[in-house]
């Protein structure tokens, strides 16, 4: 069974009216990184997940979850 890390990043980001670039700037990463995380291509580190959660004012487990 393949598991993947699903996320609610895009929905929450657009809800706050942020662009990928603005969110990237707030977390100290590139826009490409945000794009790959949103599209499920790249699994972020715990540090980045915490930064994203803080920037989007959500708990980490509300933003990311494991999907079977």
């Amino acid at each position, binding site marked *: 069974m393949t598991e993947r890390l699903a996320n609610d990043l*895009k929905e929450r980001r657009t809800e706050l009216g942020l*662009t*990928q*670039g603005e969110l*990237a700037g707030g977390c*100290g*990463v*590139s*826009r*490409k*990184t945000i*794009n*790959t995380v*949103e*599209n499920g*291509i*790249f699994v*972020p*580190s715990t540090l*980045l997940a915490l930064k994203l959660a803080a920037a989007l004012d959500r708990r980490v487990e509300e933003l990311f979850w494991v999907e079977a």
Partner: protein
Amino acid sequence: MSPTGYKEQPNGVSQPARFHRPNAEEVIERRSGFAWMLPIGLVMPAMKLFDADVDPFTRYLYFALFVAVIITACWWLLALPFRWLSEADHQKVNDEWAQAMTGDACKWAVAAFMTSAVGLMAFDIWRPLNTGEVIYGLVSAALLTGVTRMSWLSRREPLDDD
């Protein structure tokens, strides 16, 4: 920010030269495009380096070109700094996605190094190779594979903000 160099003007007065200093996002974009230049830089010296008819000067010239390509590749892989970028921009250029890409590309490069070593050994049975050819073959195979893999991973994805 202070200027990066000085250029003599027609009136004889030295004034700060204006160079374009790409920001972090531009560096990231150009890095993937630049990757395709490396194979060109590798193939060119390859044609002359081991040509017996080439004079020593040309040989040194192509050797220097080959060394330049290797240094550039190392500089890129090891993420050495651009002097005009801030610490935050450097962090952005070498963020965890960039590191993950580099790591994956290196894995492919090592695999290419090993398989090309087997290929060169087999080729050596058919036609004996000299040391230079073997070194060149191994380095080129590893570098080309690593660069190609990195370019593939950093290809332009549709951005939602566009």
